[in-house]
């Protein structure tokens, strides 16, 4: 069993998701009685392998479970994959995977490029670290879902404006439903991102006060990018509220959701390739460690 679980790699679920994506893309090309079954089968197999992979890491890693940037991206991808499977089972004729699966695969790609080392921890600040991570995760998932719904809104509106009947196997949800998701996502994303940022500040302050771990300066790229993301999401939410009663409110909100995903992506890329003190082990030993060494 150990050998089986430890043998599950990123390739297992990436391949399953990729096959599911190819099957989704084939919807308008030809009809098939077995495609839905295959699609759900590959998505479920991918999600199972994904879950086992995360579960194995949570059990075997010595630190707090899933506390590295690598795990964080995979957890975000897992949440979206679970959402995708649920939506596909509930609405088998809607090609939601065509929009969600690329985001999931990009998140797994980002995980592959990021560090597998857990963020440095101290029992005194562990709870704040978990809160910080959960809020940031919720904000990212909310932005991604909002952007997917926004893109689907624009495609559906384009089809309705061109007065074309839906393509075979490519029936989108209604504008009303998609607009409801895009309208809610900036608010949820803004509040959770703000909470994530605030909990990060608390975490940093506690570290600094107690001299536990390396603190992150205000000028650190991660602080700047997260700050910029929070500001943008608050602005986007305010704009979404402002245009709510305009006839073109649905379209503007859809675009806002897409821009939010762009800002989030830029933020992630900045985090992946920029120099930062965020999540870096301390360069000097913590006072507790010095005391222990002296003893």
């Amino acid at each position, binding site marked *: 069993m150990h050998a089986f679980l430890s043998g599950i790699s990123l390739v297992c679920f990436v391949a399953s998701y990729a096959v599911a994506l190819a099957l989704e893309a084939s919807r308008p090309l030809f*009809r098939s*009685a077995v495609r839905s079954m295959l699609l759900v089968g590959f998505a479920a197999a991918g999600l199972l392998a994904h879950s086992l992979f995360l579960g194995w890491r949570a059990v075997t890693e010595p630190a707090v479970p899933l506390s590295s940037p690598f795990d964080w991206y995979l957890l975000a991808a897992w949440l979206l994959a679970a959402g995708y499977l649920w939506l596909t089972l509930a609405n088998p004729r809607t090609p939601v995977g065509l929009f969600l699966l690329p985001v999931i695969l990009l998140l797994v790609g980002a995980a592959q490029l990021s560090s597998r080392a857990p963020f440095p921890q101290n029992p005194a600040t562990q709870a704040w670290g978990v809160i910080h991570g959960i809020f940031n995760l919720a904000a990212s998932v909310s932005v991604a879902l909002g952007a997917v719904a926004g893109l689907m809104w624009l495609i*559906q509106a384009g*089809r*309705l*404006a061109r*007065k*074309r*009947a*839906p393509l*075979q196997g490519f029936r*989108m*949800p*209604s*504008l*009303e*439903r998609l607009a409801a998701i895009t309208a809610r996502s900036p608010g949820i994303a803004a509040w959770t991102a703000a909470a994530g940022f605030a909990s990060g500040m608390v975490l940093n302050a506690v570290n600094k006060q107690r001299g536990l771990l390396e603190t992150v300066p205000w000028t650190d790229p991660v602080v700047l990018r997260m700050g910029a993301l929070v500001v943008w999401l608050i602005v986007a939410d305010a704009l979404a509220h402002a245009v*709510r*009663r*305009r*006839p*073109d*409110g*649905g*379209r503007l909100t859809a675009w806002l959701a897409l821009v939010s995903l762009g800002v989030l992506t830029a933020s992630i890329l900045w985090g992946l390739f920029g120099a930062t003190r965020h999540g870096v082990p301390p360069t000097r030993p913590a006072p507790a460690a010095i005391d222990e060494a002296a003893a």
Partner: protein
Amino acid sequence: MTLALVGGTHRTVPLDLRERLAFSAEQAAEALTRFRDRFPGSEGVLLSTCNRVEFYAAAVDAAPPPAEQIVCFLAECRGIDASLLVPVLSREHDEAVVRHLFSVTSGLDSMVLGEPQILAQVKQAWALAQESRTGGPLTGEMFQAALRTAKRVTTETALGRERISIPSVAVADFASGVFERFDDKRVVLLGAGKMAAETLRYLRAAGARDVTVLNRTAGRAVELAARLGARPGRFEELSGELAIADLVISTTGATEPLVTLDLFRQVEPAREGRPLVVLDLAVPRDFDPRIGSLPGVWLYAIDDLAAACAANRTRRQREMPAALAIVDEETRRFMGDLHHRSTAPVIEQLKAGWSETGEAELTRLFRRLPELEAAEQAEIRQAFERYAAKLLHPPLASLRNESRSGPPHGLLDALKRLFDLQD
């Protein structure tokens, strides 16, 4: 020949003659009873719809009634001069009958390609034949196979998926693309056109409850609202109704647009950005087409919907080759089974003969070897049976293969002569 078909459709029989030839359910039952008395030993199924009257006849051990007799029989049942029917009713035999029935049941021969009602009508026709005791094993298998074929065509092709009537396209492809649900939407019906009522029927099925009818003639609005289970409104309050409507269906006979761009611009602020779907089914149009370019307004004129219907019809046509391939495959399978079944008496004789010979040899052998125990005798018996089965397998497999391409008369004759089998 075991299967025969005599019938006419909208393509071959003029409407006035088709109307006279059509059978009601009672008339069909009566005709089938008469058929049973007239042609004992034959099976018969009568399919009568708006667009076709077809009589399927079959006989297991003999030929079914000749086509000319069936034509005369149908003419007699409906009191029509048979000479009128002779030139317009087509006649088919055997495989062509099966292929035709499979196509008809799958909606491939319908006036509206892929329409699903024919399936229910075929089921009813078969049920009536059973009740009238004219349905038999052969027609039973053929009709069951036809229903299976129709199911395959429905699930394996998109033939029946695309909507092709204007009201259904308007609601399912466009209004449902904008709104998730209709039970909380306000629908306004402008005018009293027949298509508006039909569109409203689809909207009701989708959940629409709040419907207001506006008509220039107040009495007509009240009457129409009562008939449609809607609320009558005052035509003078058109602007107010537009301000609160989510969906407007318009079918007035007005010669100028009722809702101009200026009028709509005045109404627009009161709408507070809510989307509006307009199904303008009137000719000339009731809504200025420029309104459709305003954000939040989804305006569909009759031509837009007709174009979408035409596109859907083309898509249905594209599914025809796949549907015909299924019909062809199922027809070959059915005919193969039918032909193979005709070999059953020969096969049974052949098996019985071998079994009899084997049993005689075993009896002789066991008499010579009395020391054999029961278990040993059983082993030897099994070996004999296996040997016989293996020897019989190649000729039986050849018979089955030959049946796929038609009745295997040649092989049957050869077997009869080789093994001295009696007819």
